[in-house]
C-alpha cells in the first residue's frame, strides 16, 4: 500500500472518530507541559513566584483533562439513554395509531438508527465539553486549586508594609517644614474607570 493510501485511511478514520473531547484533552495536555515551562523560563519573576505559578498552571490543566473526559463521556452516554426513551415513545405512538386502523407495527423500523445515535452522541459530547469549560472547571479551580497548591508549596510572601510610626507631637517652637504628602501605591486605582468618560478622555 502506497503512503498516500495509508494517509487517506488515517484521515478517513480521523473524520469519523475525532470529537470535541479528544481535541480539548490534547490541548490541555500540551498546555499542562508548555505553560509551566514558559513560566519557569521567565527571567523577570522571582524563583519562588515562578515555582508557585508553574505548579498552579500545571495542576489546573491536570484537573482539566479528566474533567473534560468525564463531562464529554457522560454527555455522550446520554445519547443511549435518550435513544431508549425515543424508541419507547415512537413505538407507543405507532401502536396507538395501529389500534385504530388495525395495521401491524414494524418495531424495528421505528427505532432510532445507529447513525443517528452516533450523531447525537457526538453533539452531546460537544455540549458536555462546553459545560465543562463554562461551569465545571472554573468552579473546581476556584474551590480546590489554591488549597492543593498551598499544601505542596508555600505561596510566595507578599511584600510587607512597615507599621506606621506614631507621629511626634508638634513642637510649636520649630519652624514648619513644607513636605510632600506620602502617596502609597494603591490597587484601587481602577475603581470607577469603567466605560469612557465624556469626551473620551
Amino acid at each position, binding site marked *: 500500500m*502506497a503512503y*498516500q*493510501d495509508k*494517509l*487517506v*485511511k488515517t*484521515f*478517513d478514520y*480521523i*473524520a*469519523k472518530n*475525532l*470529537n*470535541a473531547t479528544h*481535541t*480539548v484533552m*490534547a*490541548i*490541555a495536555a*500540551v*498546555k*499542562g507541559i*508548555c*505553560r509551566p515551562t*514558559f513560566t519557569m523560563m521567565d527571567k523577570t*519573576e522571582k524563583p519562588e*513566584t515562578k515555582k508557585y505559578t508553574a505548579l*498552579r*498552571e500545571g495542576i*489546573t490543566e491536570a484537573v*482539566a483533562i479528566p474533567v473534560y473526559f468525564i463531562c464529554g463521556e457522560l454527555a455522550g452516554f446520554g445519547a443511549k439513554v*435518550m435513544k431508549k*426513551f*425515543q424508541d419507547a*415513545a415512537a413505538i407507543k405512538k405507532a401502536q396507538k395509531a395501529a389500534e385504530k386502523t388495525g395495521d401491524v407495527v414494524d418495531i424495528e423500523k421505528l427505532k*432510532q438508527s445507529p447513525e*443517528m445515535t452516533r*450523531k*447525537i452522541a*457526538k*453533539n*452531546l*459530547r*460537544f455540549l458536555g*465539553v*462546553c459545560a465543562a*469549560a*463554562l*461551569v465545571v*472547571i*472554573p*468552579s473546581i*479551580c*476556584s474551590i480546590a486549586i489554591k488549597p492543593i497548591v498551598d499544601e505542596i508549596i508555600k505561596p510566595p510572601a507578599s511584600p510587607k508594609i512597615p507599621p506606621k510610626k506614631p507621629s511626634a507631637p508638634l513642637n510649636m517652637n520649630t519652624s514648619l517644614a513644607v513636605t510632600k504628602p506620602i502617596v502609597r*501605591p494603591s*490597587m*484601587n*486605582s*481602577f*475603581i470607577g474607570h469603567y466605560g469612557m468618560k465624556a469626551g473620551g478622555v
Partner: protein
Amino acid sequence: MITALTRALSSNALTTIATNTSSQMICETTLKAIGRPGAILIDNKISDDTKKYAAAKEFLYQATCLVVFGLLIVPVFKHGTFKAAKKLLGKTHPEINQFKSSTEYLDYYKIASKKMQNRLATLSKDHSENKFTPELREQLKTQENPDKYDWIKGAIETGSFAGSIIGLAILAPQLSHATIHPTLRFLGFEKPKSKNLDTQA
C-alpha cells in the same frame, strides 16, 4: 418532549459546529472567557480589587487565544492543510481536485449530509447555482447518500487539530505574556512593576 429534544440535538447547525474543530475551539474559548472570569468574580474568599484584576487578566488571556485562533488556525492550518493534501494526494485520489478550496468542500459536506428533500431545496437557491462542478451537483441531486469524501474532511480536521494545539498551547501563552501586562497597565488595572495573581490556564 423527547422527540423535540432529539430533533434539536441532531440538528444540522449543531452537528456542523460539533464536527468542526475550529468552531469547537472558538465556542470553547468564548465560554472560557465568560466562565473563568465569572468564577473569579463570584469567589468570596478574595478581595474585590484582586477579583477584578484576576478576572480582567483571565479575560484578556482568553481573548488573546481567540485572536490567535482567528488569525492563525483558520487561515493557515485549515486552508493550508487542504492545499497540502491536494498537492500530495491529488494524483492518486483525484476526487479532491473537484474542490477549489476547503470552504467549498465544507459547503459540499454540509449539503451532502442533509436529507434529499432539504438538499434539493438548498441547491435550488439562486446563489448556489455555480457552487460546485456539474458532476458534484448531479451527484447531490440524484443520489440518496452521495459520497461525502470523508478523508478530505479528516485532512482538514487534522490541520485544525494540530493548529489548535500549536496556537492555543504554545503561541497564545507566549503572546499573552508579552501583551497582558501592558494592556492591564493601560486600562489602569495594574501599577507598574506590581506582582499579582496568575491566571488559570
